[in-house]
């Protein structure tokens, strides 16, 4: 459990936080746990250090928070790259930059390996068959499956997108297309160049519903 001043602040925030979104709350909890771990005298176990990650990203690999990705069964090389980008502030997301500040290279590897072992997220419930079919055709047309695998499970540095949160996928694809998210290399900016916003919605709809 989080302790100390940071923990007390977090619990107070939670009581006051009825109007806040769940995402906002999870960030507060995560910050509190991070603060508690940072002030602990002894080195924390990996499990303890993972707790703030899971407060937002979900205990079982499945995020329940808007626009925060599920991490279950994500590929370790992709996770390593993202945590590295957060540490180096090459991907600017304040809470993530703060969360991995001071991580050693060994920390980056250990976290990537541990997170990759979380169970795969459950896909979103099956929905509109017409939109699903549009998404299936687009995955084929834009060759998503070449790199992300036929079942979109990802491999190596190419992330798993099967069962990912639909809102996160929409946000991410838009950010790649607009160059707002630079990515590690520019592969996705290249891929997104001919893809319309309507197609982004169909692609995300489909990927979120793959097991």
């Amino acid at each position, binding site marked *: 459990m989080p302790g100390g001043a940071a923990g007390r602040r977090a619990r107070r925030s939670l009581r006051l936080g009825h109007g806040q979104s769940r995402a906002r709350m999870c960030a507060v909890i995560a910050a509190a746990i991070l603060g508690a771990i940072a002030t602990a005298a002894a080195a924390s176990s990996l499990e303890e250090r993972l707790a703030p990650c899971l407060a937002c990203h979900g205990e079982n690999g499945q995020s329940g928070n808007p626009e925060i990705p599920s991490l279950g069964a994500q590929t370790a*090389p992709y996770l*390593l*790259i993202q945590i*590295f*980008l957060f540490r*180096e502030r*090459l991907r600017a997301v304040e809470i993530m930059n703060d969360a991995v500040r001071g991580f050693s*290279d060994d920390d*980056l*590897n250990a976290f990537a390996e541990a997170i990759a072992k979380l169970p795969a997220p459950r896909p979103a419930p099956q929905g509109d068959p017409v939109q699903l079919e549009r998404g299936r*055709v687009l995955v*084929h*047309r834009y*060759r998503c*499956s*070449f*790199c992300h*695998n*036929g079942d979109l499970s990802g*491999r*190596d*540095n*190419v992330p798993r997108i099967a069962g990912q949160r639909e809102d996160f996928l929409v946000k991410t694809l838009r950010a790649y297309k607009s*160059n707002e998210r*630079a*990515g*590690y*290399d*520019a*592969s996705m*900016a*290249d891929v997104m*160049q*001919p893809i319309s916003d309507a197609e982004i919605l169909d692609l995300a709809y489909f990927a979120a519903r793959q097991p």
Partner: protein
Amino acid sequence: MGSALAQAPAAPPPTGASAPATGASAAPLPPGSPLLGRPDTEAAKKLAPIAPPPLPTAADKLPLDKLKLKSGFKIELYAAGVPNARTLRLGDKGTVFVSSRVQDKIHAIVEKDGKREIKVIASGLHRPNGIALHKGTLYIAELYQISKIDNIEANLDNPPKPTLILGDLPKDEAHGWKYLTVGPDEKLYFQIGAPCNICMPSERHAKIYRVGLDGKGLEVYATGIRQIVGMDWHPTLKQLYFSENARDWMSEDMPEDKLNRVTNPGKDNFGFPYCHQGNFTDPEFGWGHSCSEFTKPLVLLGPHAAALGLKFYTGNGFGSEYRNAIFLARHGSWNRSVKFGGDVVAVKLNGNGTVRSIEPFITGFIQNNNYVGRPVDLLPMKDGSMLVSDDYNGAIYRVTRNGHVAQK
């Protein structure tokens, strides 16, 4: 040509060769056809851009024992732990400068008391792939701007922030990273690549530009260029040579990357997106065009080879055979089932600057269809040796003839 050339292109086709030796037999499908998707072979499912690992490989894990050189040459470690090592440049006082593409830093390597030291001299940069040294000044081409640090070798321990000289370049991530070189006219040369695999580029894209060292007088130098990550100047003809990466997703074997030369500054158009490899038109954008409208390549460099850095070797250390030859790094393919490239080739020229031969010089970066390293750029040194950067391992190697270097 020995067996090591098995993976290199056969004899380079003459400029303007007729139909390429390899090619698709079926008519290409229209863009957007669902049938253009993934074929059902296991090999073809495994095509994806290969990202360099973010952390450099430890010195004792580098693939030096796997690399094969032409007889009489030796390769050894020069520096490990240079993350995502890309463009190599040499300062007047012997400092080696190293850029990166997927990280934010530029490193300097200095030799002091027989030991090499690696220093970060600039950070917080956005894809600073292009660097050039000229009269003591370091020029840095980030994705969308060019800046400089004067008198850099005197300030390696406390370098000032770069000063902007040219801003407001397009911010496209796709092919947005730059190569930068200084011409014999003391101007900066760089490209703005096509922001796509294949598309109709805007007026600003798919061109080589030149601009004064003060960032003034920007002008177009050449057009119709998809993407460049290597340029150098012929030592006597003073013409710009550059490698160009061809489009993906058309075929395993076509189109090939090109080695080009600018002979008509401001007028040469190298064909993108209408004509590929100088001899066939694009299945979508080529209609109504002929490859005869465009400047031909000097030589083709192989399908999806990712021909990157190239340097003229003007020293004596490698023997007269290599004097004024081009060394060229092929980073290696991703958009091809059987990987191609992953080597350094020597391109020997005729007196008029056309290509006489192309032969393997360093091979072995591909093992069992996987990369153990990927060569990016080359740097001939004053002692006759040559450095090779490897962005996959974050390392720099040194090649010598029989281990000999000239005394300083």
